[in-house]
């Protein structure tokens, strides 16, 4: 499932427990700064393929998951 993979990528990157990451978790809450966001997006692109445009609308983990799922469809 996309959410589980995304959460694990974030967990590995920030060295935190994946179980603490919820769909409504914001990047700010997870301690992900603006450059971390780019790093993670690049990792998501490597994992899922495609290109993810950086946008201020991407605030929560659910936002990323929705974007990835839409691209995969």
């Amino acid at each position: 499932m996309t959410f589980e993979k995304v959460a694990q990528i974030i967990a590995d990157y920030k060295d935190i427990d994946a179980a603490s990451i919820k769909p409504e978790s914001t990047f700010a809450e997870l301690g992900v700064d603006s450059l971390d966001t780019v790093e993670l997006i690049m990792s998501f692109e490597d994992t899922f393929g495609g290109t993810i445009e950086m946008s201020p609308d991407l605030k929560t983990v659910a936002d990323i998951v929705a974007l990835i799922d839409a691209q995969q469809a």
Partner: protein
Amino acid sequence: MKIIGSGSALPKQVVTNDDLCKILDTSDEWIVTHTGISSRRILKDETVYELGALAAKRALEEANADAESVDLMICSNVISDYVTPAPGCFIAGALGYTGQTLDINGACTGFLKALDAADSAIRAGKARRVLIIAAEQPSALCDWTDRSSCILFGDGAGAVLLEDSGEGECLSTVLRTEFNAEFLNVEMPANNNPFSERKGEGRWLQMNGQEVYRFAVSSCVSDLNEAAQKAGVALESVDWFLLHQANQRILNAARTRLHLPKEKFPGNIAACGNTSSACIPLLIDEMRKDGRLRDGQTIALSAFGAGLTHGAAVLRL
């Protein structure tokens, strides 16, 4: 093509993160964790021309060479006090050099562009000795009320004297251009020409940090792989990776993606900041003087900057 001399020159004025906190809403902790920079040198009453000339003199002195023995002088600079005469001319005047000067505005990729041009001139037999000077004053490009950009940059000059001699060789270069003015630019103001419709005050350095980060990391990884393949060397066998010192996090991300050890990625960003095209020659000089760089080693260089331009080179020293 062998490096027979190198030189550095930094402004006297040190500006620490705490100094910046007096004029900007920022903190030492934020700057260090986000960029790796603790302090930088900013030109106060010296000129970037004096800095360039000093770095050049030091490179010539090391090689026990006179300025007149240089066949081609290449100067890499984005901004200085005059649009014309070009910086190379000012530096030539200071050195008493009257030969050919070639000025490059190559942004942060400028030193690699100069290196490639020097290699071409030497291989073509048009020059035996080439002096490259990267003299940069990026502090003059920033809006110093904009904490997102001015904290990143420092001023400095690095020079290398190259000669067609010895065993050293430029094994490969990769240089690319992907035009994009939106992510990184400095716009000139219009003058009072009544016959032109161009208007505007101009704008100091504008940078989309996230997009530039993405571009820098991906192009660095791609270019180093390509340059190594062209040179016929395995990246794992390269002794040192000298990357453009734009941001410590870019360097870390590129290194991680390349699966290469941290020890092979030296840097000067902590005390110099991003000195544009001077980063790499400053690092080359520092490492030659302290013995880390030695004849026979293989080193890889990588740079990326406004244009957007990027590239890499593999050298055998």
